[in-house]
């Protein structure tokens, strides 16, 4: 039995549209109908613009018809007619951009992010505004000012975060693929908790222009999809140097899917590192067992498994919460009630306008992080906190580069636990932060990382496997992930909704 359209892969839908048996408008209608049916329960979207999405789909069908009529066919654009959900921190011209914050309620993007522009040029339909933890600060989507997203596998539980809406939408058939952003695990952790593929590219691979900045030295945009192949297709579209982001690197963008196929054809046997520090206290036994089974599967594929050590792992969360909050306190200074965003009606003078607009506009987690970041940068504390954290960052990065002298990639759990219940960690920020213990080091080191489904708990909650690659070796990373995916069937399961 074939999948419902809204649950199909990018590759299969592209094939159906290329052979003329499916139009983009019909696909978009199916996705809209699905979204209307399930989103009242999932709440993955902050908003969606049905008329705009259908207009984009019609334009796609017209492009396809024109190319056919003129015979100037050539290969179609890589995402022609495919609805891609957009995390509500990525600008789409003319659409709302809220970062799930009251301070940006009503804001309309005046321009496209570079990732958005590239999706549109590739024929994709930019679909809806997906929920997140306010300003991407959180691991559960509970910090959204507009309501919590539910995990499609268990509506009582969180989808992870901060890109919880992006993960839940793909898992629930409300988008064919989606974009998220990942500062400390915000793509990989929700991907693991919702049983989809989620990838953070190397820092500098994808332009951050038009992405609302949280921590500029850590943020990257990346894809969610239902297969490694689909994730590679979307990543290929959004990758590349951009003069508007001076930290995006001028290096070639390979054809990821061709590269994956070449590695598979060559029967490459990878050397994979298993860091002992990622399998200690705090790891849920069912998650540990599923990841161990995945490692065994790699061994059966002929891969060489080596224990490696990343000795500074236990310091990653501490270093991260200094660096990320320091950067956020600086980035979020722009929300001052003057040029855009919420302006307090109660302000008595210009300076009071800042205090009151920010107090009224930001939610508690954002305030906490701005306070912490301001503190670690303040006079008398800079060296003890911020500078020390930057030095620890160097050591964390060195650990990875040292391991890569021995192995091609590193395999770990993505998250120490499966999806937790809503409210369970909401009052305890530190417990929430520790949820990102396996994903944060990757951001500090600027590495590419991917999470893919590797099993379920007895109670039916998804478990994710994280594969961490070498800088700018996304093709190898994707090929390692694809090797496992090809031999297992976890990704074929769908939540009952």
């Amino acid at each position, binding site marked *: 039995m074939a999948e419902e359209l809204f649950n199909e892969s990018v590759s299969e839908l592209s094939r159906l549209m290329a052979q003329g048996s499916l139009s983009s408008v019909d696909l978009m209608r199916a996705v809209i109908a699905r979204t209307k049916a399930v989103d009242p329960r999932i709440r993955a979207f902050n908003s969606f613009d049905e008329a705009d999405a259908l207009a984009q789909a019609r334009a796609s069908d017209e492009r396809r018809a024109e190319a056919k009529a003129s015979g100037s066919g050539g290969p179609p654009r890589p995402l022609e007619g495919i609805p891609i959900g957009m995390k509500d921190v990525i600008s789409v011209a003319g659409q709302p951009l809220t970062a799930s914050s009251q301070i940006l309620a009503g804001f309309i993007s005046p321009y496209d992010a570079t990732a958005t522009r590239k999706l549109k040029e590739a024929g994709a339909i930019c679909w809806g505004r997906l929920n997140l933890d306010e300003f991407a600060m959180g691991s559960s989507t509970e910090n959204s000012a507009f309501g919590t997203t539910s995990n499609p596998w268990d509506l009582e539980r969180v989808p992870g975060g901060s890109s919880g809406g992006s993960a839940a939408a793909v898992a629930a058939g409300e988008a064919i693929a989606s974009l998220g952003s990942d500062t400390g695990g915000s793509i990989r952790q929700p991907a693991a908790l919702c049983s989809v593929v989620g990838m953070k590219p190397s820092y*500098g691979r994808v332009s951050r222009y038009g992405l609302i900045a949280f921590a500029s030295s850590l943020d990257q945009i990346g894809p969610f999809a239902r297969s490694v192949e689909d994730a590679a297709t979307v990543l290929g579209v959004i990758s590349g140097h951009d003069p508007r982001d001076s930290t995006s690197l001028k290096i070639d963008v390979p054809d990821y899917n061709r590269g994956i196929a070449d590695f598979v054809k060559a029967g490459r046997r990878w050397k994979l590192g298993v860091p002992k520090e990622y399998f200690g206290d705090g790891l849920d036994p069912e998650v540990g067992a599923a990841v161990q089974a995945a490692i065994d599967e790699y061994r059966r594929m002929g891969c060489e498994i080596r224990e490696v050590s990343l000795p500074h792992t236990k310091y990653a969360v501490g270093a991260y919460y200094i660096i990320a909050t320091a950067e956020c306190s600086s980035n979020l200074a722009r929300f001052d009630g*003057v040029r855009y965003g919420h302006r307090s009606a109660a302000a008595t*003078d210009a300076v009071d306008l800042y205090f009151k607009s920010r107090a009224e506009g930001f939610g*508690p987690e954002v305030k*906490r992080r701005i306070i912490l970041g301001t503190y670690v940068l303040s006079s008398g504390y800079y060296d003890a906190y911020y500078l020390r954290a*930057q030095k620890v960052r160097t050591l964390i*990065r060195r650990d990875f580069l040292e391991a890569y002298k021995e192995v091609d990639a590193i395999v770990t759990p993505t998250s120490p636990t499966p999806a937790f219940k809503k409210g369970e960690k909401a009052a305890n*920020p530190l417990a929430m932060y520790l949820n990102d213990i396996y994903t944060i080091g990757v951001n500090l080191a600027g590495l590419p990382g991917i999470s893919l489904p590797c099993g379920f708990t007895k109670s039916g909650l998804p478990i994710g496997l994280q594969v961490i690659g070498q*800088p700018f070796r996304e093709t190898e990373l994707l090929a390692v992930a694809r090797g496992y995916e090809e031999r297992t069937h976890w990704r074929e399961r769908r939540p009952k909704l």
Partner: protein
Amino acid sequence: MPKPEDLKLDHVANLARISLTNEEKERFTAQLGDVLNYIAQLNEVNVDGVEPTAHAFPVVNVWAPDIPEPALSVEDALRNAPEKRDNMFVVPKVVE
């Protein structure tokens, strides 16, 4: 490393230009105290002679040719303004 109780919330909130309620001050002091206690383990790390990392892949001196390009129109730049007049942002009186 400083102690968690060194965090003077009124002072830092003033630097950050955020007014906090008493309830928020109480809650944040406790929650950030936990976080700062946790962060204190960074003291165990020997960082002597270690260079700080600001970016994983530092790129320096990114030059671009100085060519004027179309930018946001005044109308687009002002579209999200909370208050505007005569192609300008309106703010409360700054100078008496």
